[in-house]
């Protein structure tokens, strides 16, 4: 079966679950695995603009759709504002949850650019971080939100 991942057409076996197709078949190990049943968010990727938990997504459900993983987020060496904010605020500790945190935040800020702090926390509350980087995740996502908005307004 063919998948469209980070703008490229890739072949995977049609029985697979998306997270394993990405990681084990395509070698895109930036997408992580934490719980396998949709509870932790470590496996989050963006499918047609929506944050999706790849551990509970059969590849059949996403064939023909546009899949974005952490590896495809930076554009030509320039980090996405959310990635940059996660560095600016020195967010990651072990880093294992971070692809999922970043992809969830990217999808949230695309869908709801003016999300309130409460809405940000509610959306991010389904992404667990065992290292406890929460103080900085909050600061970084809110900072990225400000920068993305400022840039949009600058362009308008």
């Amino acid at each position, binding site marked *: 079966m063919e998948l469209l991942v980070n703008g490229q057409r890739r072949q995977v076996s049609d029985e697979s679950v998306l997270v394993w197709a990405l990681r084990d078949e395509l070698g895109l190990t930036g997408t992580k695995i*934490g719980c396998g049943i949709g509870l932790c968010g470590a496996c989050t990727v963006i499918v047609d603009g929506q944050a999706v938990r790849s551990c509970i997504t059969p590849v059949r459900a996403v064939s023909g759709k546009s899949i974005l993983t952490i590896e495809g987020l930076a554009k030509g060496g320039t980090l996405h504002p959310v990635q940059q904010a996660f560095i600016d605020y020195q967010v990651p500790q072990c880093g294992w949850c971070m692809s999922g945190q970043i992809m969830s935040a990217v999808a949230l800020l695309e869908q709801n650019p003016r999300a309130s702090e409460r809405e940000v926390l509610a959306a991010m509350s389904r992404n667990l971080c065992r290292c406890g980087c929460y103080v900085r995740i909050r600061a970084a996502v809110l900072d990225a939100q400000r920068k993305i908005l400022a840039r949009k307004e600058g362009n308008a």
Partner: protein
Amino acid sequence: MSQRQWRLTRRGFLISAGLLGGGLALGVRLGWPEVQLKIAEFAEAASPTSFGGASANPTAWFELTPQGRLRLYLPKVEMGQGVMTALTQLAAEELGIAPAQIEVVQASTAQGIRDLFGTAGSTTVVSLFKPLREAAAAMREMLLAAASAQLKVEPAALALSAEGVFVQKHPARRIAFSDLLAQTSKWEVPERVPLKSPEQWRFIGASVPRLDLRDKVTGAAVYGYDVRLPGMLYGAVLRPPTLEARLRRVDTSAAERLPNVRKVVVDLGAGFVGVVATSRAAAQQAIAAIRAEWDEGRRWEQEDIDRIVTVGDEGGVVIQRVGDALSELQRGVSLQAEYRTPFAIQTPLEAQAAAADVRPDRATVWVSTQSAALVQQQVARAVGLREDQVEVFPTFLGGGFGRKSGWSEVAVEAARLSKAVGAPVHVGWSRAEELQHGFIRPPTHHRLSARLQDGRVVAIQHEQASGNVLLSFVPGIARGVVGADFGATRGATIRYAIPHRRTIAWRKDLPVRTGPWRGLGLVANTFAVESFMDELAHLAGADPLAFRLAHLPNDAWGRRMAAVLRAAAERAGWGKPAPQGRARGIACSTDVDTVVAQVAEVSLEGDSLRVHRITLAMDCGLVVNPDGVRTQAEGGVMWGGGSALLEEASVRNGQLVATNFDRYPLLSIDRAPDVEVILLDTLRDGQPRGVGEPPMGPTAAAIANALFALTGRRVRQLPITPTRVRAALSA
């Protein structure tokens, strides 16, 4: 594998001249931190060879690569605690080049990791602080001397850059490292290696950005679960249905017939049944198709375990005796209270994972581990090779927290399966395996008794019972002679200046495998001791902060505790009214020579306790990377908060109940408190101290004490769930 020949110099450095494929190298051997010596002592009693002696090879070293770059081999692993950056800062300081300009490589067991203690116990920066700077300084001096001979300029007028040596006043006059390499066999380690003085430091004490973060926000960092090898297959292992299950019979014929299965391995004696397949899903299907018959053993219930973990019978070991607390308490006990903490699971978000490539004469293992040298021993034994035939590469760790220290079941599983199938095999545990089949934090029980006289505590006793923490890793024979488990009792002794003090600990063998968890016994013991101090303060009618200050010893500990207590209290607004509906609690702890105090501000939403803010003050001596230390403190607070509010594992019907985060919930961002961190250095003795675990100490106690301040009711059992809050409020 690296086949370097090392030569010991008079100053205790190890030097190795350029060889085929490797440039000049210089390293140091490390002494063992105290706790490691202790473990070695115990283990040696049982099997003299297992912890080895001094090795002929260095543990931390620099290499001038054939490409003319400076490379640092790290003997400790990066699991999120920032050691890669902190250690590179130490090296950069003496080399005089920026941390980002040093090539940093995680050493394998063949390249430097030999200490069996591994990366644990908040000891990394402390143990490497001096030796690593000395090695860097010696490297610097050698490079300068060599360049001086070529450039005909005094060494003092030269400096290092990322690529070579240059004349400070005329940077255009320089020589590349690669042009110095040819001469290296003649180099001598200098006799005098002056270290920079703290006034000269540029990187130590600076919040140097983490070196590993770009790779961690782009998905490029490689962890144990991410390792991929050509021709790699996937393994899975059959797990027992109960804690005590023993495999009796197994029928693997259905599994063997499945199309993508390459091998089914059965070792009844060892209770091992594993499969190798072309995908993880196929391996799981094969495991599901195995029919096994088990002796299930006893169907343990949590109540049985709580009964075992109870203080008071024969066999306790007195670990603190000041004055004569027993006689004093016989004259009258003013207050007695009991506390309990539950099983809790480290459950790093990256589950155990390893890839192994076992050949007839050697094996290579890539694994997410805190203890690569132990894994090397284990794998060698499991596949019948000598230790020097096994090389273990530790990867980045997606969290460790003690779970990836000690034994690595997954590395052995991958190695056994790789040997059986004759190809590289990856094994990655599921969350269910992680929650049910690892070693976990043991439950504890505490009984504290004290006598007050004129508002002061004159006598106190802490009776403590815990499952094993560190002694689970020590052979049974040695355990018999050891007595108390110094991991389980971390934080159990009473630091306050109370004339009569006694702490007695019971070590309980349990049917659940237990072992190290971040901070070991620190959270449980501090919860008990600091809750009890709070109870005594209220009984004496004193302010909890003033009561603690009034009981501090008149020594360095007392001064440091006073400093952190005052700093946290002042910043948190202690003594001023809390916002409407909220209250504050305070607690402190001492651990690995670091002192921490915290103030928690809480409220109730229904029966559910909400922690709004933790103000933390920590005296951890000299700080190498302030922002890195703050990060550790913030994370530690989340661990303490999770233990205080949520984390509890239990046994039902012979097995641990939780198989995923629905039944073992972790703290999430919407329940996470704000954290403010204040760093102090009261002693100013130029020594860094551990920061990975100490910040967790007081959190749960501060939260419980705040709940009491809010409601006048106390919850003496962790976690403080809505059910327990309701029970306390209606009692």
